[in-house]
């Protein structure tokens, strides 16, 4: 079954042609590279764990959506182009931006062998293909970076928006917001003195801030903030030293 002279004959033929047999030479060496990647994944996974956020709450109005990192460019491309699209008054033709353009981009990728037909295979001698690749990489890179930046910006603005809508009626931060008398009448004859929040982070621990937001004491009404709003506010208020 496994004739020896046959395989020896073949080995010489392979050697003369400058090729190696798929099994075992090629596959085993490729496996070494592959198993290195799997081992790196294994070791990395020991030290860095994904985090689980709060359980999904459809009513949470405060949460800033974030896709997986490799979809940031999709979200940001539609955010940015959608903004200019509506500035130009083209909302009637949303389907062009949201359907036709993605379909064209996917088809351009699919049909690469049909628009890049010349026999030449060196990239620098294929100007159209090279240009398309540069366009693609710049597109992905720009919208990914912009998406991450934009998401960070929205997350940093969110506690300030929540403060304006939910807290600023009574409290102030660095003189902004609050009641100019420094006192609020909660019921006839009942007064509370909402503290200035400018230095909250030096006075209360994050756990105490969370406790006060979820189960307020001292006359503050329960705002029933959604979980994302609580966690953004805890981070924000404890950063105010």
């Amino acid at each position, binding site marked *: 079954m496994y004739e020896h002279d046959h395989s020896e004959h073949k080995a010489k033929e392979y050697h003369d042609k400058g090729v190696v*047999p798929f099994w075992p030479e090629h596959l085993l060496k490729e*496996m070494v590279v592959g198993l290195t*990647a799997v081992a790196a994944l294994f070791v990395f996974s020991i030290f860095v764990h994904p985090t689980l*956020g709060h359980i999904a709450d459809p009513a949470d109005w405060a949460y800033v*959506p974030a896709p997986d990192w490799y979809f940031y460019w999709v979200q940001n491309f539609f955010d940015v182009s959608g903004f200019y699209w509506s500035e130009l008054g083209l909302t009637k033709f949303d389907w062009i931006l949201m359907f036709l353009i993605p379909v064209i981009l996917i088809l351009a990728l699919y049909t690469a*062998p049909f628009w890049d037909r010349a026999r030449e*295979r060196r990239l620098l001698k294929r100007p159209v293909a090279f240009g398309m690749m540069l366009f693609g990489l710049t597109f992905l890179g720009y919208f990914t970076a912009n998406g991450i930046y934009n998401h960070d910006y929205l997350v940093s603005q969110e506690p300030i928006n929540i403060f304006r809508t939910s807290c600023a009626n009574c409290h102030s931060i660095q003189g902004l917001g609050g009641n100019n008398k420094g006192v609020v009448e909660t019921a006839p004859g009942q007064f509370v003195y909402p503290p200035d929040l400018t230095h909250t982070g030096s006075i209360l621990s994050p756990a105490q801030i969370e406790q006060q937001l979820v189960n307020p004491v001292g006359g503050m009404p329960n705002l029933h903030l959604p979980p994302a709003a609580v966690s953004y506010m805890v981070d924000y208020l404890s950063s105010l030293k």
Partner: protein
Amino acid sequence: MFTRIVRWIDERMMVSPLWRDIADHPVPAHTNPSERVSAFVYCFGGVTFLLIIAQFVTGMFLAMDYVPDITNAYNSTKYIMDHVLFGEQLLSMHNWGSTLIIIMVTLHMLRIYWMGVYKKPRELNWLVGVTLLLIILTFGFTGYLLPWDEKAYFATQVGVSFVQYVPFIGTALYEIIAGGQTIGAATLSRFFAIHVLFLPALLLTFLGLHFLMIRRNGITGPY
């Protein structure tokens, strides 16, 4: 003894011609990383395949403890992370594995594009490859919902809302994917089924085609 067992099986199944066909074919030496270190660029596809196998294994173990309904999806993910033996390691590997696959697939595709591998006679394999890329991205998108935390929920809400813009069938398509007007219990069980049943079947089919065509067309020479 071993030879006799192999011979006994082979007399009945005739696997050795098959095995010879799979194993015994020449591969150009310039793709072998031990001949030239720079040949590691030829390994990105193989590495992706190995990582996909790792995803299959970790995914199977995760499915033992995961429950796809709106209260238990989150709780069972928490249970896997906190109480299952090596659960956090499994979840972590599955999570970072998807990231690594996206990176490797991108590098693999760049290598194919850079070297003009998709040119005649390999056009069909490029079509299969782009389809595989879309399948892998769909894996990432559907898997992201399964922990059912806020990050997952709102990202899916944004992602699925894009299909509404498909002309004529947009609204219907949204309801087919989301299983209703909003992202909810039906979306979760649909995404779970897509992630663990539909997509693996599609992935294996297209990987089979991919490898068959590599075998038919061979590996490109160095220009």
